[in-house]
């Protein structure tokens, strides 16, 4: 009875589809709109990039040249600030990994009920924007009893906070894909020590997740402006901003460099963690 109804329904749908000429033309109309929207979107995406690139090449009058790049790269301050940013990025990545990977692993293995709480905490940067967090940090640690303002601890802490949502999400997704409990207990019953469990069992399984977290964190820190600027530490972001108020063309050349860095990092990340599209940005 039931299968008969189904069959008659599908036959009816089939006939309907076959006879509806108007529907196909409607879909074609839709297709044109889809193309128009898509092209507008692409213009929005690419026009600023193209303009920036062209702008960065037009330092010499009436000809295209890499003069702005040459000038930008010949400034020792550029390398110094860039170097600082690379250093901040590396420290942040290491610290963030040390904080997130063991925590996420432990939560998955021993305290699964705590997972939503930890996830909630990692999403806090969306509730407390960078500028507000900086404000709070400076007011809290800028005066005794705890004076942290002279050391880069606050900067690194801020960067770690920024990276929390992405890092946790990447590692969490990775851990979900493997059976943490079985792997750990199998390793334990085979007599493996903690170091072996972490470095030979868990980490290799998380390689993809960790790498995507690493590259995204790198991209975020390299382009970050708010923390570095307000906490007064040298970094690439504030340097571009400073140059922007001094010279024309060069900031655009540096912007192109910054684009490329971001794009390469995120491109690598998307290639490694295929399918795991990252949402929600925090470093605006």
């Amino acid at each position, binding site marked *: 009875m039931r299968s008969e109804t189904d069959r008659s329904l599908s036959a009816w749908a089939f006939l309907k589809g076959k006879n509806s000429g108007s529907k196909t033309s409607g879909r074609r109309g839709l297709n044109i709109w889809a193309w128009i929207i*898509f092209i507008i979107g692409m213009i929005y995406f690419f026009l600023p990039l193209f303009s920036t690139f062209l702008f960065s090449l037009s330092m010499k009058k009436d000809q295209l040249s890499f003069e702005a790049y040459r000038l930008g790269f010949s400034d020792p301050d550029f390398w110094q600030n860039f170097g600082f940013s690379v250093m901040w990025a590396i420290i942040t990545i290491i610290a963030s990994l040390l904080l997130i990977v063991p925590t996420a692993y432990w939560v998955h293995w021993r305290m699964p009920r705590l997972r939503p709480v930890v996830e909630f905490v990692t999403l*806090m940067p969306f509730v407390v924007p960078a*500028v507000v967090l900086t404000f709070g940090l400076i007011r809290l640690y800028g005066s005794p009893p705890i004076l942290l303002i002279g050391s880069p601890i606050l900067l690194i802490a801020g960067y770690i906070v920024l990276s929390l949502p992405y890092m946790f999400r990447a590692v969490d997704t990775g851990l979900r894909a493997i059976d943490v409990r079985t792997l750990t207990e199998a390793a334990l019953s085979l007599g493996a020590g903690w170091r072996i469990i972490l470095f030979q069992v868990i980490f290799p399984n998380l390689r993809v997740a960790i790498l995507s977290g690493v590259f995204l964190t790198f991209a975020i820190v390299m382009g970050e402006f708010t923390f570095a600027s*307000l906490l007064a530490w040298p970094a690439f972001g504030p340097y571009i901003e400073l140059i922007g108020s001094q010279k024309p063309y060069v900031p655009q050349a540096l912007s192109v460099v910054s684009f490329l860095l*971001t794009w390469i990092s995120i491109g690598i990340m998307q290639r490694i963690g295929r399918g795991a599209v990252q949402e929600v940005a925090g470093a605006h």
Partner: protein
Amino acid sequence: MTVVAKKTNNDGNVPLERPKTRKFSWDWLGVAPFFLFATLFLFLPSISIFIRSFQTRAGEFTFENIIALFTVSDIINAYKTSLTISLITAVGGALFGFMLAYAVVLGGLPGFLRAFLLTFSGVASNFAGVPLAFAFVATIGNAGLVTRTIESIFDINLRQMGWSIYNITGLSIVYMYFQFPLMVLIMAPALDGLRREWKEASENLGGTSWHYWRYVALPILLPTLLGTAILLFGNAFGAYATAYAFSGSFINLVTILIGAQIQGDVLYNPGLGNALALGMIVIMSLSMLGYTVLQRRAARWMR
């Protein structure tokens, strides 16, 4: 401990039940570093902002700072500007992002364009701050490519005609660059979640395309659509670097004002700065809450 002692000493009788020894779980130790970090660098700063919002310079309790939020014209204007830009770019970004996601998912475009757009959106939504600001200066700024092209085509001087992008409209155009890709990223999977059976069922019951969208697809997508719009709102509201690099302090946003307050007490009142930051946390919390609630509703129809 005291409870246990009382029970056993009850008139010297034998205890009726084994004392419940609640063993301390050493499992907590494993998450202690994480929560210690979060306390030191997330919760304590937020709590201190909250407390100091209600303190006078001398440290006494007061509501004055909170009242000032709603009475000092600079602050009201800053909130107005921030809310306006966030609202414009959230609605604009949501609409355009939705159309774009619709175009690549259901609009019958070749499949590779979809993959391309999603990859691109992943990059663009993470791409903001100083470089983005300079990109738009090179595009629609006074010497920007688009500006100069328009000027040479129509032989006019836009600058003399009062053209400027260092205002709410200009900043909204910049913000849109990271707003609508985010919408695309969230909307594309949601559109994928629309099952073909639903459309077929609607058609089999004699429904037109309008009926399908009005009574089936839109109600299912609405929580995602609204939720993401709220997320975009918060995304724009908390933005600082882009606005600062784009216009300096021309545009009086709340974030810009807080930044200025950090660099030097421009409000001449530290408590007021805290209240300003607190207002921001409250608005961001509300928008995250709205997003979470709507996201949960949206999840009902997915999978």
